[in-house]
């Protein structure tokens, strides 16, 4: 199989790369939305993410890839788990599942297993994409073009972490905890606010204006297309290093200290911006902590808050009819007002 374009070989786009790394480090962040111009490497970056994720330990044979430490109902009811312990476990690649536009609902949520229904007359559930994405990432390219009924479904499942299937005579519920990653081009349609809110970080990408950078992008893409294997081999070490950084950051994450001063600074920033609810502050804190973990810092300071404020907050601003400056500019201004 052709290897994907290595994450490390992406030129520039620091904010996007940081946001994707943070999502890999801290799944509770709630995923990343990458919005911007076409042809800026959005989907390339997301597809490169899989190679950076630490492997997952799963109950062998579980269709939802559940954690041996917390087996799902399906596993508990089966012979895969005995006395609350998994009989066999596997170490697998964390899933990064593509949700294609125009996917049918039965393919997303799962459906009646036709094969078994027809051949054996058994009513069985055939898991869908949401099942496969459990404990991993669900990627929707062109997320703003996703049909409404699929958006509704995602909003619901992303919030509850559980997929409830009541259709075709089936009644199934299974864990579907995934990190949502979306990308799109805002010129072609807006995202429903409820879905927007599900994303922890929102990144704006623009095409590189620096000629040298543009040339490098084209050169690397050309090298990759000509010989994907050789290109991937050349970047393997770098990807490996990034993966170790992610793994190390995950381990450090819980030890990163968030003191009252940092909490207060985050709260002041959110108040200044008038973001809705507490989700903004929570995301800002978690993201700043993940940044600190990535950098190997012991505690969150205003430096981390500054670095991640725009992606954590820019999609949570209320529209201000008297202020037509972009949301990034508004966050930057608030940063200056609050932190000086």
């Amino acid at each position, binding site marked *: 199989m052709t290897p994907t374009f290595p994450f490390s070989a992406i030129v520039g786009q620091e904010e996007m790369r940081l946001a994707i790394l943070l999502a890999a480090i801290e799944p509770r962040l709630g995923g990343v939305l990458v919005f911007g*111009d076409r042809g800026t490497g959005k989907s390339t970056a997301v597809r490169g993410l899989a190679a950076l994720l630490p492997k997952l330990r799963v109950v062998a044979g579980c269709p939802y890839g559940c954690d041996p430490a917390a087996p799902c109902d399906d596993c508990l009811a089966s012979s895969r788990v005995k006395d609350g312990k998994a009989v066999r476990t596997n170490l697998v690649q964390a899933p990064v599942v593509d949700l294609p536009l*125009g996917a049918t609902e039965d393919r997303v949520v799962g459906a009646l297993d036709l094969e078994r229904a027809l051949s054996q007359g058994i009513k069985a559930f055939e898991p869908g994409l949401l099942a496969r994405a459990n404990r991993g990432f669900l990627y929707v390219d062109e997320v703003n*073009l996703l049909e409404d009924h699929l958006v509704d479904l995602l909003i619901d499942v992303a919030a509850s972490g559980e997929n409830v299937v009541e259709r075709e005579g089936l009644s199934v519920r299974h864990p579907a905890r995934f990190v949502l990653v979306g990308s799109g081009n805002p010129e072609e349609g807006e995202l429903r606010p409820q879905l927007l809110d599900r994303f922890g970080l929102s990144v704006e990408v623009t095409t*590189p204006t620096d*000629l040298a950078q543009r040339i490098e992008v084209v050169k690397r*893409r*050309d090298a990759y297309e000509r010989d994907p294997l050789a290109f991937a081999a050349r970047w393997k070490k770098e990807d490996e290093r990034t993966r170790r950084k992610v793994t190390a950051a995950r381990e450090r994450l819980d030890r990163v200290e968030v003191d009252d001063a940092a909490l207060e600074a985050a709260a002041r920033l959110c108040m200044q911006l008038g973001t809705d609810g507490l989700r903004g502050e929570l995301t800002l804190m978690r993201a700043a902590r993940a940044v600190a973990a990535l950098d190997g810092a012991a505690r969150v300071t205003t430096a981390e808050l500054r670095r991640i404020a725009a992606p954590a907050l820019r999609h949570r601003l209320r529209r201000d009819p008297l202020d037509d400056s972009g949301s990034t500019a508004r966050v930057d201004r608030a940063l200056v007002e609050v932190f000086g």
Partner: protein
Amino acid sequence: MNDGALREVVRHADWDDASLAAACIAVDPIGLGGVLVRAAAGPVRDAWLARWRALLPASTPVRNVPLHVDRDRLHGGIDLAASLVAGRPVEQAGLLVQVDGGYVVLAMAERIDVSVAASIAAVLESTDAGRGARTRFAVIALDEGDGDEHVPDALVERLALCVDLRACSIKAVIDAPRHDIDAARERLPRVTVGDDVIAALCETAGTLGIDSMRMPFFALRAACAIAALEGRDAVDEDDAARAARLVFAKRVRRLPAQDASQEASQEASGDADAAPDDAADRPDPDPSSGGPDEQADSDPTSDAVDAAAHADADASPPSPDVRESLEDVVLEAAVAAIPAGLLARLAADAAAQRAAQPIRLCHGMRDHRIRQQC
């Protein structure tokens, strides 16, 4: 040169570009992704399709995909009839898998549902057809849109080549040089590209406001295909310039010189009003019929208009005393092939932007209109 003769030349240029695009996509379907063919159904388009088909190796799969194709047929699913006969589910490979190594022809692509277009685009790029199947193919998107409708951007973005046959008369359909596709395919992997060519393509795309980084890359692939067709092992200046015509010209969003004079842009916007959304005729580029006269020579925008009209008539560069860099050659070639309707609109845009700097309300709409052009 009189009007009629000039038009004839322009039309021939369109046909030449289209012929070259047909040869390119025959040589490198996978690298180039496909061709957007803007043309009404008719003998000219038929001639182009016939020419393209004639270039393909005999066993190449080509499938016409109708607008009403359903998802299962496109991406694979249960074969209902076979399943009922067999008493067990029989999977059927989708069209996109069946066409592996070949071409999908989308008729009336301007009417295609956005999600269908995006799903084809996704397979085109990821080669992942679902259920573990891999497929690589190219798309020939036939666009009969007359301005209101356009092929979804998600798809257009993944097709390297744009050809426009709407201004091309059947008289222009002449025999283009025969190419040895097999030899070119065999040569293609060996074709090398100098850094100067890559730089020139990147710079040109940037100058013309073409943001997507796919486009300079596509132009690079097209230049390699052209070099392979010409039997060369390295891309030269001419290959790069011709690739820029095929890839960039219909996607231009900004003219190279922003400080065009007022008169020229008014002239251009007048033309845009007279011929909204790319009527079949190009606006009259002949200075003697009331366009900008002396002023035109010193004016960058009308230079561009001029270049578009005269590029094939006389190859004299705007400033002959300056030795042209590779960038200039590539840029000029791309500008020369901008369709007249788009060119007029871009000039009008530049003028409007100067006239109303602070008001940017309609900007998005205008962008949208420009994208429709491509």
